[in-house]
């Protein structure tokens, strides 16, 4: 057991922290909430140039063959500033799906442009009820006589769909010979595809996708028919752990800003931080941070090393989601009225916590997976 970061990772972490602190002050994050596009194109370009988008991909696609753990560290840093970015949906989810399921020509066609940030893809995961179940993905693909497909159904809460060049989604192919959950790649402006921007509590731009007789060629299938759930199940663990990193970064900032405020803010003639109730709340926050850090780092490490870690990932996601939520709650309680104002940063983290805890499976569903792993 060694709990320190490797030297190169420390260098990467520090430089990422510096870069993001400079480029993404909270004022930018707020601006982007109001912005239609919802992310900074210049930062997006720079993250590509810094090699972040391609960090874990093969060199032949322009990647850097870096460790997954380092990517996790980047997400932790992005979480600290709540950088709005299609990084996760494009360069992680969509890129990895293609990397996992695509053939060489598909990879050669897409990965370099994803890695360079030239193309933005997104992957639609949730059905109309907000559920994720690749077996019943909420979109149906009817095979036509010509061998192409017609897609109908709804996908919900799809990040950055409004700017995505192409959209990956899982649809259920109805075919007697070979059917089942299948990954399709459709154009962001496909005919019959309605993209409804959703007004949500969080800061990320999310859309509903309503597919009405959207035509998809057989070539638009990624990988094999009926294997969509298998491909996704290989990619989801990574996205889940990166979300843990993002939550961890946010959690850390909430603890920092709250403890700082408790040192400064005076009430009853002395700093609030001298009150025992405040001190105990802060100790609880510190405990959530430390525990979330350890359990998330463990999952990221094991996944990065290619070691078995299904249970560890679910433990991390369940715990980090709860810990982040509880910490932002305490943060609000200690900040009082000021934290409830739009101009304070705290609420950005509060809603981020709430939404992130539900992304890629709720705490309950991950506890259920832990139970599965325990054989109960």
């Amino acid at each position, binding site marked *: 057991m060694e709990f320190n970061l490797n030297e190169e990772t420390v260098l990467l972490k520090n430089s990422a922290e510096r870069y993001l602190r400079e480029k993404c002050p909270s004022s930018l994050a707020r601006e982007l909430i109001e912005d239609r596009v919802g992310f900074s194109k210049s930062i997006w370009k720079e993250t590509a140039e810094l090699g972040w988008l391609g960090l874990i991909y093969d060199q032949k696609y322009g990647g850097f063959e870096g460790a997954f753990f380092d990517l996790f560290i980047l997400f932790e840093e992005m979480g600290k500033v709540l950088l709005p970015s299609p990084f996760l949906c494009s360069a992680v989810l969509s890129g990895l799906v293609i990397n996992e399921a695509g053939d060489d020509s598909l990879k050669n066609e897409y990965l370099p442009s994803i890695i360079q940030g030239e193309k933005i893809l997104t992957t639609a995961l*949730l059905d109309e009820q907000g559920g994720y179940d690749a077996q019943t993905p909420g979109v149906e693909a009817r095979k036509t006589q010509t061998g192409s497909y017609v897609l109908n159904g709804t996908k919900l809460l799809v990040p950055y769909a409004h700017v995505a060049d192409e959209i990956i989604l899982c649809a259920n192919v109805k075919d007697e010979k070979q059917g089942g959950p299948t990954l399709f790649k459709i154009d962001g402006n496909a005919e019959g595809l309605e993209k409804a921007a959703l*007004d949500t509590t969080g800061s990320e731009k999310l859309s509903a996708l309503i597919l009405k007789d959207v035509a998809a060629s057989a070539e638009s299938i990624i990988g094999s028919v009926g294997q969509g759930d298998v491909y996704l199940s290989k990619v989801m663990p990574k996205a889940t752990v990166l979300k843990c990193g993002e939550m961890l970064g946010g959690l850390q900032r909430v603890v920092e800003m709250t403890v700082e405020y408790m040192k400064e803010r005076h009430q009853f003639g002395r700093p609030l931080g001298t009150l025992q109730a405040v001190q105990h709340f802060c100790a609880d926050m510190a405990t959530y941070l430390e525990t979330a850090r350890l359990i998330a780092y463990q999952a990221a490490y094991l996944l990065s090393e290619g070691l078995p870690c299904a249970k560890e990932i679910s433990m991390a996601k369940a715990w980090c989601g709860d810990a982040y939520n509880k910490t932002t709650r305490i943060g609000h*309680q200690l900040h*009082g009225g000021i934290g409830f*104002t739009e101009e304070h940063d705290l609420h950005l983290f509060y*809603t981020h916590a*709430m939404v992130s805890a539900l992304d890629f499976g709720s705490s309950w569903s991950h506890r259920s997976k832990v139970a599965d792993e325990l054989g109960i």
Partner: protein
Amino acid sequence: MRFVFTDEQNKFRQEIRDFLKSELDAGTFSVDVSGLVGGPDQEFSRKMAEKGWIGITWPKKYGGQGRTYVEKMILIEECLRVKAPIGYHFSADRQVGPALMAFGSDWQKDFFLPKIIKAEDGMQFCLLFSEPNAGSDLAAVTTKAVKEGDYYIINGQKVWTSAGHVADFGWMLARTNTDSSVRGHLACSEFMIDMKSPGITVRPIINIAGAHSFNEVFFDDVKIHKKYLVGEENGGFKQIMAQMDYERAGIERLMQNYPLFEQLKNHVKEMDKDKDGGYFYAWVRDQVAQLEIEYNIGRLLCYNTAWVVDQGQKPSSQAALTKAYCTQYEQRLNDVATKIMGPVSQIKQGAPWAAFDGDLAACNLWGPSYTLQGGSVEVLKNIIALRGLGLPRK
């Protein structure tokens, strides 16, 4: 002892329900989970006034009906069930009236009470208590009221003023003794202040739900006649502590997001029981049963507090305990509902996929305020410990 309502009370409740249903059916208002009570609507308040439902506990001589606080709670409970728009008269009815009756001058009572009880023009109140450096610690207020002849000159700043931008009158705590060696507890007075007075500037504070519910209020040489001083000069702190009990004794701290609970229970009845091997439904069932228990207990606490007031007792520790418990329930309801509804809980009103038509998203955003408004849970626990249990201060 009687843990049921009397026939008369049940009849009264039905009368209110019928009224509210007909108003809802007529589209006068719609259920809204943001904010403590439904928004200000003078027209609606007038209808309530006609029924005699403002100042219902006040003595007949002020136009009231001398009914019990338990009956008042039945009234408010029914209003909150559908979040009826009682915001125009709510503060005046809950706090201003009782405070005037307790501490006000004859002129003040004669001038304000009949107007409040009829929801007349100019009778919406806001509360000017908190300041940037006097939140939980009200004794630290620094807004000054300096006497000059028949007038007081007000200078300073208030914050977290709900409805400050629409209210006609403010109910203010200000420091009248400027000798800084005198503790705030003995140096403050209460005033009523016309919000249109020259020298008052109201600046909006947008909250995290994107709503303009709070304000900053600045006072720059604002002049008020001494007839607006309420009660004794420098006796304001003591008065305000007594009034706070009434602020805390209401059922509005339990039911701020009540419509969510009804919707959640209905949702659970309809949900797919076999999802996730039936495990999820079993978990939901247990969570909702626990909420049902907690809600019912909160309701008993509220009615018990009302009953204590009806007995002529000061409900101070009782009201603090009730509010602390109830607001924590409101947060738990919000949390549990979010966990049950999953990702669609983040979708705001407008989209067809929004959980409970966006009510859950609204509650998510208002949630952090539940346990802070009108005294944080921690301040209330201090009151329970010190005043209720008699634990030593030092």
